[in-house]
């Protein structure tokens, strides 16, 4: 076994793991019946699924090519942006009431998505 062979097998294993998790994410997206539970599936794909696929790409590039660290950046940007889009989608769900309505927070506060008046809106973190 030389390095090229080990690299090939490692990349193949990572590809399989990534494909498996992506498949599970797609199945989850299809079979859950509530808008909020369905949102859980894509967040899974975004983390381990894509992560394993990128790891496969990185392994292959180091074994057969010049080697590349671009995948680390893709992963980092993905990890930063995935929660934002998930947050937007859940906000839309709450706003359009396409899911089970969330419980009201204690002490007379409201969820910022459901705030009606501009006056009610206090910027986060300025009050303590």
């Amino acid at each position: 076994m030389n390095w090229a062979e080990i690299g090939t097998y490692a990349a193949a294993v990572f590809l399989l793991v990534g494909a498996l998790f992506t498949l599970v994410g797609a199945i989850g997206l299809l079979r859950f019946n509530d808008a909020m539970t369905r949102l859980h599936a894509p967040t899974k794909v975004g983390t381990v699924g894509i992560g394993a696929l990128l790891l496969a790409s990185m392994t292959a590039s180091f074994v057969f090519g010049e080697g590349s660290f671009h995948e680390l950046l893709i992963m980092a940007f993905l990890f930063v942006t995935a929660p934002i889009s998930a947050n937007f989608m859940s906000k839309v769900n709450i706003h359009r009431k396409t899911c089970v309505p969330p419980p009201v927070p204690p002490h007379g506060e409201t969820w910022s998505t459901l705030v009606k008046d501009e006056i009610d809106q206090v910027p986060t973190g300025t009050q303590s």
Partner: protein
Amino acid sequence: MTRLFNWLFPHPAMTLILAIVWIILQNDLSYGMAVFGLILGIIIPRMTAVWWPDRPSGFKIGKMTAYVILVMWDIMVANVQVAWIVLTRPNSKLRPAWIIIPLDLRQPEAITVLAGTITLTPGTVSADVSNTGHYLLVHALDAPDPDAVRDEIKQRYEARLKEIFV
């Protein structure tokens, strides 16, 4: 001297991150690229410092690294658990729940990192904050005991973030 340092590096961690991102983007670790990355890392935070008025003054990079490794590990473990739930649990036996997490964190940056962590760890998605930013709304895919999930998030992630952002 410290004033000059603060003027030149309003955000030292950001300077470092920008320099590293530039070097990785170029895929070329040479002195030229490192210097150019450092120049970008000085110019960009300097020019955008106006828009970071209340940035956290203390930020522990060492503890943040440990936190990132912990979260990575949690993501992998939780992913397998959730994949199992997706493949084996029928919809009727799924117990999705809304969880309200009272926040001890006050800085918007720290709350953002916590919300991002909650979304990335499978099984939970952070959906909203309350209008004063004192409560976080989290949706759990399968939570037989919502209080246990809340306590785990508070102990495992929030307590660590409180030490990182001081």
